[in-house]
């Protein structure tokens, strides 16, 4: 009979205390798993979506809001900017490529983005079927949009006013699905792309009705929402943002800086939760230690009997260490599984499709959680195991 089986059966003979220990460790590990998965996925999304964009230029306001609305499509834009000013900036010698964005409409909550062919090269978009948008009111949709909205090439749909789902449809102009993007693994999976003229067309009526359309200034001057800039040279990093912020009525925001700022803001909460989870893990380790230590007192006679039956000191040491390890590793595995399930549940209720998280991915850092479980197991059982190793069986037997 192996020491593992002896330890295993000993754990099963105390289901309540063993269950409590496993639950405590699982709870701590579960929180750590959620934090690990969520922060990794958020960081990945931030990096994936902004990797080739050096600067975003838009209306004055919060730079973070500008980044969130123009790169991650999860906030409202800070306003619109004149197309004339945007064109001037696009031709600036510091700029290699400028991609215009015109936001303002949605389809069932999915953002409709008016842009040009620069957007295709900026994100390296590939088609799954159909073609890229070309004529007015043609749309190329992200792979998730096609799946979730049940749209296919040739289908038509009406955009609605605003960036969140509502009933204010532009019923005079139907978009036609020209193509579906292959999965990109970034924000474009959840977007509807069209040309800027289509977005303007939708809002011409607004101009006619109330004289102040979203994409026009009422005098026929066109507007867009923002510009995604790629620099021509490293020199641009220093010169161009200053030029925009000081020389124009526009605002520039760096995705790298704002993402870092955003992450440090989230980071405070993440750190707090992380310490909380570590505290729970520590309590769990102490609980396993107390459990083993107390059970050792109760089992000292059992262990002495085992020695009289021929068990070596080392065997008793291994049996106790294994008990600690089985408890903590079981707790860690349950915790990792719970963490994944909880994150998947959170993702299910997430409103924003752009920042969608998932519990169905495994990352290599999770191995560290298992290693932490191992370390806690050894930490919690080493003292009881040493005591079992050193116990004076003659004394214990004589006492009993």
């Amino acid at each position, binding site marked *: 009979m192996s020491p593992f089986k002896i330890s295993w059966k000993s754990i099963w003979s105390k289901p309540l205390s063993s269950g409590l220990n496993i639950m405590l460790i699982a709870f701590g590990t579960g929180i750590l798993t959620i934090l690990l998965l969520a922060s990794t996925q958020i960081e990945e999304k931030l990096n994936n979506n902004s990797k080739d964009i050096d600067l975003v230029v838009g209306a004055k306001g919060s730079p973070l809001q500008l980044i969130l609305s123009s790169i991650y499509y999860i906030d409202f834009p800070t306003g619109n900017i004149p197309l004339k000013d945007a064109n001037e900036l696009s031709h600036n010698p510091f700029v290699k490529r400028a991609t215009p964005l015109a936001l303002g409409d949605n389809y069932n909550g999915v953002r409709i983005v008016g842009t040009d062919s620069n957007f295709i090269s900026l994100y390296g978009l590939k088609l799954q079927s159909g073609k890229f948008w070309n004529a007015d009111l043609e749309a190329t949709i992200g792979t998730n949009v096609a799946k979730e909205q049940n749209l296919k090439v040739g289908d038509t749909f009406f955009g609605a006013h605003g960036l969140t789902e509502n009933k204010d449809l532009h019923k005079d102009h139907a978009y036609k699905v020209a193509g579906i993007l292959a999965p990109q693994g970034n924000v474009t999976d959840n977007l509807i792309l069209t040309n800027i003229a289509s977005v303007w067309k939708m809002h011409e009526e607004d101009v006619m009705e109330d004289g102040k359309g979203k994409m026009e200034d009422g005098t026929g001057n066109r507007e867009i929402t923002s510009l995604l800039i790629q620099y021509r040279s490293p020199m641009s990093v220093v010169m161009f943002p200053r030029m925009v912020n000081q020389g124009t009525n526009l605002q520039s925001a760096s995705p790298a800086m704002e993402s870092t700022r955003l992450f440090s803001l989230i980071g405070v909460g993440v750190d707090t939760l992380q310490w909380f989870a570590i505290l729970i893990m520590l309590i769990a380790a102490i609980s396993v230690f107390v459990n083993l230590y107390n059970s050792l007192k109760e089992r000292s006679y059992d262990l002495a009997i085992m020695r009289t039956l021929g*068990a070596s000191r080392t065997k008793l040491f291994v049996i106790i260490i294994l008990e600690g390890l089985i408890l903590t590793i079981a707790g860690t595995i349950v915790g990792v599984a719970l963490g994944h399930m909880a994150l998947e549940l959170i993702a299910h209720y997430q409103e924003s499709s752009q920042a969608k998280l998932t519990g169905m991915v495994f990352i290599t850092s999770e191995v560290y959680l298992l290693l932490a479980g191992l370390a806690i197991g050894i930490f919690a059982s080493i003292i009881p195991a040493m005591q079992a190793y050193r116990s004076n069986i003659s004394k214990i037997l004589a006492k009993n």
Partner: protein
Amino acid sequence: MISLKSVVHSYKDTKPISFKDWQINNGEQWLLLGESGSGKTTLLHILTGILKPKQGEVNINQTSIYSLSSKNLDQFRGRNIGIIFQRPHLIKSLTIAENLLLVQSFAKLPEDHKRIDEVLNSLDIIHKKDAYPSTLSQGQLQRVSIARAVINKPALLIADEPTSSLDDKNATAVLELLMEQSGLNQATLIVATHDKRVKDAFTHTYSLA
């Protein structure tokens, strides 16, 4: 042959106890008689290799047990000495069969289910093979503890106060079982007790003053 030669032991702050020399031929059945506090348990622990005497030598079948390394002594004990305690202390988390398998594995012997069945059969508790100790009566537990002691066919079978808490009828029954099992397994039997009721059952007696 089992022999005890010039053995002296002392605990901290107590007077040393000298044990008279003792020679036991294989297969003999001995009574170790002595009042409480006379050193019976100490002598049993010395004989079983769990308490090294301050001086003297213990030989079991030509092996000087205290010259063995700690690991080898543990294995030697597992293979050659079977111990029955006053209370039949079994491992509660294991079934009866597993309690016996445990003894085989500690002695590094192959798992022998046939032998387990044979011993449990001879003690009339085969039907409790897969039961847990908590479901057995005191008498059944005592039988299992005897089964555990003889499972590896030890050369020496030692029982520490096996009858002291039993009434006359049960004391006789346990003693008969012990003698029967030591005979069946060709083991030397030493029964340590202060219970004078069992005196007549033995032809050899080692008395402690």
